[in-house]
Structures are given as structure tokens and as C-alpha cells.
């Protein structure tokens, strides 16, 4: 889910990083007590229930069906035949297939590994960036934040395409390096793992920087001064004070990079080669190439189970901070 930028990002990221809801004012209890509040609650609740949550139930159901030459291209798991009543046919074969064909295991592991190392590199690059921005003066800070946020607003697909223009064999990077005499043969970056890494880091870096900035910016400067007054060298202060206090930002930023990166489709499809099989690509090919909807559903459900841990951490973190 591609990114979001709003005009007051600092505010919003602070909010995402430290989602704290204050106890409701008693005056508002008046409003709360009215049955009319359901007019406010129900429309978004029902819409998201029907169009976001319930679809998972359908995917789960269809993952137990079998592929069939009809419209839609799968069998009914519930069938009624005269004399035998309603019959439930659950076929676990799609899930068995995921274990027998090594493509799936390979793709899951490759996706997790790629997302994990991309997240680490984003953290290594994004932390110093966020730190430098947090220490800048207020006016510089606003300009730097705008610079970080602006790419968010521009199309994700077009940015991946722009990166291709840099790293392709006859792209900007090779042209410049050849011209300077640094290299004598063009570097082959396109269609390799390196291209996929570059793509993910390039696309997701702002997601890492903004939550980190939000935590670093509100760090209490007096703590740092106290540590310095007590004789702590700057690197010790960083390790003992700054780093532990910025952990919420590290977690928020890492989850915002890691989870979407595991399921990335556009980057491996446009920049990666045939070996860079990420699970998003496998799912896409299963669906659009093989037209095997039940197997594609099983891949999606298995994928969701795999992501349940990270998503639960992210959600727990948000919800915990939300409940008074």
C-alpha cells in the first residue's frame, strides 16, 4: 500500500508512532450516550467489514476448492444433490501443492530474506537521516521533511520506472561511470537481486525516515544534556539514551518497510530477473498466467499466515497505544 503523505506529516507520524488517545471528555459522553452515534459508526464499519475483512473469508473458502473449466474458474465447495442433501467438499490439495512444488517455499524464503535485508539497509540509511533532520533548525527541518515526503506523493510505479532508467545497462549510472573511466564494461544491475534491493530501498526509504524522525524529534533534550553533564561521551549518550528511546520509531519504521516489501510485486516484476521470484510475483503469475484461482487463494492465505506475526506486532502496538 503505497504511501501516504499529508501536509502535516510530522504530526501524523508522531501519531502513528505514538498513537495515544486521551480519555474522552465527560462532555462528550452526552454524545456517546445517544443512539444516533450508530449513524456515525455503522457506515465505515460495515463498508470495511464487507469490502476488506469478509473478502478474506471468501479467499479462505476458495482455497479449498478445485480449479474447474467454468465461470468463475473453480468448483463449489458446497454442493447439494438430490437424495444426499448438502455436501461439503474440502480439498486440501492446494495446500499440499504448496509444499510439494519447491517454487513456493523458495519464493517465500526469498521474499522474507529480501525484505529483511532491505529493511536493515533502510534502517542503517534512514536512522542517520532522521537524526540529522531532527537536529536541524526548525526552518531547515520543514524543508528537509518536504523533500523526504514529496516522493511519497509521486507515483510508485513511475518511480520504479525512473530507477530503471538509472540502473539499466545503457542507463545513467553506466553512462557516467564509463565516461569517467571508472569502469570499462557496463555493470549488469538490471534483472539481478541487487536491482530488487535498490528498488525496495529507493521506494520505501521515506517510510523509515518519517516515523524515526517523529520519535527522535520529541526526544527530551534535557536528558542528553544531563548525560553530557555527567561526563558521558556523545557515543555513550547515543547508545544509552537516544537509541533506547527511539525504539518505537525503529519498530514502526521497520514494519512499514518490511511488511509491504515482502509482498512487493512491481519491483521484482520490473527490475528483477527470472530468479528473483518474490511471492507477490508467484501469486500474480498463478492468477493471471495459470488462471488457477484456488491455488492463488491458497498462496495468499499461506502468505497471510506468514505475515500474521509482523502484522500482529504492528497492530498490537497501534491498538495498545490507542486504548486508554
Amino acid at each position, binding site marked *: 500500500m503505497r504511501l501516504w503523505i499529508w501536509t502535516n506529516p510530522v504530526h501524523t507520524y508522531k*501519531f502513528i508512532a505514538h498513537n495515544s488517545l486521551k480519555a474522552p471528555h465527560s462532555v462528550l459522553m452526552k454524545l456517546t450516550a445517544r443512539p444516533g452515534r450508530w449513524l456515525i459508526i455503522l457506515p465505515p464499519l460495515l463498508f470495511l467489514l464487507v469490502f476488506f475483512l469478509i473478502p478474506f473469508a471468501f479467499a479462505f473458502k476458495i482455497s479449498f476448492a478445485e480449479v474447474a473449466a467454468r465461470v468463475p474458474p473453480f468448483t463449489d465447495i458446497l454442493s447439494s444433490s438430490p437424495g444426499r442433501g448438502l455436501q461439503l467438499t474440502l480439498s486440501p490439495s492446494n495446500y499440499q501443492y504448496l509444499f510439494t512444488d519447491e517454487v513456493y517455499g523458495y519464493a517465500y524464503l526469498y521474499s522474507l530474506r529480501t525484505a529483511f535485508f532491505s529493511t536493515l539497509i533502510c534502517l542503517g540509511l534512514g536512522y542517520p537521516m532522521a537524526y540529522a533532520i531532527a537536529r536541524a533548525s526548525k526552518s531547515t527541518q520543514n524543508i528537509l521533511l518536504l523533500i523526504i515526503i514529496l516522493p511519497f506523493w509521486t507515483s510508485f510505479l513511475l518511480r520504479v520506472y525512473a530507477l530503471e532508467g*538509472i540502473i539499466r545497462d545503457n542507463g545513467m549510472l553506466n553512462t557516467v561511470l564509463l565516461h569517467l573511466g571508472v569502469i570499462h564494461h557496463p555493470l549488469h544491475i538490471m534483472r539481478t537481486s541487487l536491482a530488487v534491493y535498490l528498488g525496495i530501498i529507493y521506494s520505501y526509504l521515506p517510510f523509515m525516515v518519517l516515523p524515526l524522525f517523529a520519535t527522535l524529534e520529541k526526544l527530551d533534550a534535557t536528558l542528553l544534556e544531563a548525560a553530557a553533564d555527567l561526563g558521558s561521551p556523545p557515543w555513550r549518550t547515543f547508545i544509552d539514551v537516544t537509541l533506547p528511546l527511539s525504539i518505537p520509531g525503529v519498530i514502526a519504521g521497520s514494519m512499514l518497510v518490511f511488511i509491504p516489501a515482502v509482498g512487493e510485486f512491481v519491483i521484482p*516484476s*520490473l527490475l528483477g530477473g527470472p530468479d528473483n521470484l518474490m511471492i507477490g510475483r508467484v501469486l500474480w503469475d498463478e492468477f493471471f498466467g495459470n488462471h488457477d484461482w484456488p491455488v492463488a487463494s491458497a498462496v495468499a492465505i499461506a502468505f497471510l499466515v506468514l505475515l500474521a506475526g509482523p502484522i500482529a506486532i504492528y497492530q498490537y502496538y497501534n491498538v495498545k497505544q490507542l486504548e486508554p
Partner: protein
Amino acid sequence: MEKRHSPLLLSILCLGIALLYVPILTLIAYSFNASPLVNVWGGFSTMWYAELIHNRQLLGAALLSLEVAVTASTVAVVLGTLAAIALVRFARFPGRLLLTGMVNAPLVMPEIITGITQLLLFVSMLQMFSWPHRGFTTIVLSHVAFCTAYATITVQSRLQSADRSLEEAAMDLGSGPARAFIEITLPIIAPALLSSWLLSFTLSLDDLVISSFVSGPGASTLPMVIYSKVKLGVSPDINALASLIIIGVGVCVIAAGYLMRRAQRQRELETKFP
């Protein structure tokens, strides 16, 4: 925290910013390249821009994308504002945890999973109710779902920090809660409504994966057309189109940010010196 910057920090910051901007700037520069070869500079030309006007496929897709984005973001802002009011103002109600979860999950849910699950829903609904047919309607419905999540978060954060004393004063003076909200708080959160609309609009305009799953024959959005062209390699007219979109969005975002900032300052001044 104003301190001297270490050269290391500054160079990493510059490196990061260069990483974000060099590809985009190169793309814009090459869109003015007269040569169709991507690595040869053939002089300045706007020919690729002129060619866009005659590309009916791209124009049709752009029109569909705009219609989808305007419809989806408008509905999403309404639903998102309602959800934000519910989450910020109502401390306890059945389904609160569910709503919180459904608002936060789309932010991290891989699009490919959302796309396939929603398609399966639409297909099953079509079997049961003969509605909706895959195309404009299904794309809008799926876009509203993820845009609502983003809109809720944006409005929620603004609503939470909005000063409640004015609204309370209005209620003390006899105004009903609904009226107090509409007359006092709504104008205060208006900038957040505008930014959540803009955000939803750009997210919808940009979406490739979900649209590809839920769309039907004949309904290709702009990202779908761009993707199929880009898959075949770099092409100069896509460079021109991409530059137009990037520059257009950039100008709108900066202008909207500037206007909102000015409006906010104005309001702060008025509150201080009425």
C-alpha cells in the same frame, strides 16, 4: 536539539536525498530528449509531449483513472471522517477494536493479497446478487476500502489534537453536539479533510495491483496501461507522461501545503487577537 552536525551525518543525509531524487530528475530531463534512444542525447525537444495528445489508449485510461480517483476519494473521505469521529469521540462501543484493526491493517497489508481477496468477493457477490460487474464499480469499491483507511488515520490525528474548548463552549451555550461539531470542529479539521482527499486521490490514481485484480475486460486504468508498456522497456512517451504526472502532483502538493499553512496561521492569529 540544535547542534553542530557531524560531516558523516550530513553526507548520509545528502546521499539519501540524492537517492530519492536523482532517478526522478533524470527521467524528467530525458523526457525532453529528441532522440528515441534512451542513452543518446539528441537535443531538446517537446515532441514526446505532443505525441501523448494523440495516444487514445493513454487518454482513455487517464480519464478512467481520474473518474475512479475522484469518486473513490470523495466517498473515502466521508467514510474516513465518520470512522475518525467514532474512534476519537466514542470511548467505548461494540466493534471499536474491530474498526481500529480494519483501519490500520490496510496500511501494511500487501496489495496483492487485498487485490485477490477482493476479486474473489466480487466474483462471489456477482454469483449471488448479480452485482457488481467487474469494471468501474469494482475498482471504485476496492479503492474506497484502502483509501478509507488512510483518510481515517489522517483525520483522526487532526481531530485528536483539535482544541475541544470551543466546541464545549458552544454546547454550554445550548448548541447540540451535532451542530457544535459541524459549526466549530469541522472548519478546524477542514485542512485534514483536504489532505486526506488529496492523499486518497493520489493513492487511487497510482494503484496498479488491486485494480489489475478487480478490473474487468475493457476497463484499464492508467497505471495498468503504463505497466504493460513499461514491461516492454523504457519508452520516451512514457517518460513525458511520467514527468507530467510527477510535476503536476508535486505542484499541487506544494501549493496545497502552502495554502493550508497560511490558513492555519490566519486562524491562529484570529484566535489570539479576535
